[in-house]
């Protein structure tokens, strides 16, 4: 196989695998920038994937599935918001709780409704997000270098993938160029300043949490409607945690988030592609090591051997007026 083909193959699967990570990590960015930490990305994604699988099957419509995913995920994030903003509970505990509730209830409900043992029925073409062929992809294919890159790397992804990558600049723009973004960043740094400026801290934080819910829902829908043909038990498989790690690694900045997610996506793609294949210089790497590599890498990164990640100053702390 020639080198370009090899590269394209890896690059394409990197893009596929990083799409849900980017969506989930950006989701986390909105809530954490608002000062509400969320380790429940995993659960919200899973809940979204489940809702998408169910509704897309019943309605035979991918869009209906996407909508359901967003609704369910937003509801879950509102639970997290209620616990951590209104009730001022421990945000980590709340996130853990949501992950369990979703992990359990999706299986129970899925089994009760479809009786297919930990999965929703396989979706037909029409109920899934199709790969989109960009214009002239076939025509340009023969152009050396650029042609294959355009046809195979840039073209042929699900709409949600394009959405995810477009969300990166959009999130940047929202964060740094809009009133909402200014207030969102402020509420995660010093909620007192926001409160005295006559803005509701509670409502701002809820808005951050809701944004998180929407994007987690999309990430979930991507898993069950684009990457797969339906929901399966535990299909997020730690992606929510990887996204969280990517968010921290990216120091809560949108563009960095994309690069971090691409890196983790690449590691995943690499592990799948080279499972059991002896590598030059290193020799045969146990598949288990390849699977653990993203986590090991994250630990090393978190240990501050590469820069220092400073979280939003008011993150994790419920807002209480002085006194």
């Amino acid at each position: 196989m020639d080198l370009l083909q090899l590269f394209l193959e890896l690059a394409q699967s990197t893009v596929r695998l990083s799409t849900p990570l980017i969506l989930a990590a950006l989701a986390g960015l909105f809530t954490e920038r608002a000062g509400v930490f969320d380790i429940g990305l995993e659960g919200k994604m899973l809940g979204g994937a489940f809702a998408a699988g169910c509704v897309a099957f019943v309605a035979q419509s991918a869009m209906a599935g996407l909508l359901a995913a967003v609704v369910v995920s937003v509801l879950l994030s509102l639970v997290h918001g209620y616990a951590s903003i209104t009730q001022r509970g421990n945000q980590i505990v709340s996130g853990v709780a949501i992950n369990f509730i979703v992990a359990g209830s999706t299986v129970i409900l899925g089994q009760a409704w479809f009786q297919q043992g930990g999965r929703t029925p396989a979706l037909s073409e029409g109920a899934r997000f199709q790969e989109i062929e960009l214009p002239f992809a076939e025509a340009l294919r023969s152009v050396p270098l650029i042609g294959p890159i355009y046809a195979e790397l840039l073209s042929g992804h699900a709409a949600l993938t394009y959405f995810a990558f477009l969300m990166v600049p959009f999130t940047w723009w929202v964060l740094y160029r809009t009133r909402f973004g200014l207030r969102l960043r402020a509420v995660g740094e010093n909620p007192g300043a926001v409160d005295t400026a006559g803005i509701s801290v509670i409502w701002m934080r809820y808005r951050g949490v809701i944004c998180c819910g929407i994007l987690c829902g999309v990430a979930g829908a991507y898993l069950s409607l684009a990457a797969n043909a339906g929901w399966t038990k535990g299909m997020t498989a730690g992606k929510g945690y990887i996204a969280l790690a990517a968010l921290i690694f990216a120091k809560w900045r949108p563009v960095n988030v994309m690069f971090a997610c691409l890196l983790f996506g690449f590691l995943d793609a690499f592990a799948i592609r080279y499972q059991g294949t002896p590598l030059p210089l290193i020799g045969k790497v146990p598949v288990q090591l390849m699977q653990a590599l993203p986590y090991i890498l994250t630990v090393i990164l978190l240990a501050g051997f590469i820069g220092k990640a400073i979280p939003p100053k008011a993150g994790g702390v419920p807002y209480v007026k002085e006194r």
Partner: protein
Amino acid sequence: MSVPYAKLPAWAEYGLIPLVNLIVAFAVAGLVVLLVGESPLEAAYHMINGAFGRGEYIGFTLYYATTFIFTGLAVAVAFHAGLFNIGGEGQAYVAGIGVALACLSLDRIMPWYVVFPVAILGAALFGAAWAFIPGWLQAKRGSHIVITTIMFNFIAASLMNYMLNRVMKPLGSMSLETRTFEAGGQLPKLDWLMKIFGLSVGTSPFNVTFLLALAAAFGVWVLIWRTRLGYEMRTMGHSPAAARYAGIKEARIIVITMMISGALAGMMALNPIMGETYRMQLDFVQGAGFVGIAVALMGRSHPAGIIPAAILFGVLYQGGAEISFEMPSISRDMIVIIQGLVILFAGALEHMFRPAITRAVLAVSGRGHTEAAVKGA
């Protein structure tokens, strides 16, 4: 400063509030049962019957409870020092190596009461070692312990998969497990204990590890409330600045606390490996590390609360198995939901019912005025 609630009498603090949280969690779980089209009352009946119906059932219930006492204590110890150890799952998993090593090397030459202490040591050492790294990284490099311990759960899963695949599996075997231990690696069941109550242990794996768990609970109580180390841990948990002022070494406390926590989580591995299957299998922890979070929250991080909370989850696990047998549409994943709900209501939403309960209790007992008058100025 947080709102200072009037002090509640102990029975309300450690009895009433967890009970209310539990009732709400069960009510929500009941809704899920309804949603599935089954009767919550019937489910409750099967659960209670399945957990207590016979001596054998009680044996199973207490067998599960044993596991959860360890993981609950692990989370609680870390809580007292202000640390959130979500890594109990991974620590217990890796600790399996310690137990298996002790059994594999000694089971043919030594009786169980010699192998057991070695295995305890092995479990504690491996569990502590796996918790040491996140603790050290937090103490020296400032990595957030919650995130690192989560990552270490995943790393542990890969590591153990590798160990069972390549290292600890007998030659020629297909299944991912060690060989079955001989007599020295099999813990005796607690027949005599059950007999006192006129019950039989039956086929249940209720074994001496239960006594070790009770001893560990007592040990944790002594550690937290009666030793200098425990005093230092609590000081740090409440106020890191006060700890620094008092000359308490933060890094040292973090590392030691995490190692104790990991050792406790690790001892959980004794129960299934030496007490039930007599071999180490893939995924033998089965989420017990996470159950520990719910148990610790419900037991309010106090051993006297953790033991009943662990038994409660034992009831859920054993009763849940019975429910899934009688009512196939309610699989054991129901337990995961309840676990999540308990964590939500007893943990993240712990303040939701507290003001109302406080008012009610103070109104009933009429002691509010004397205690409340202390505040002021």
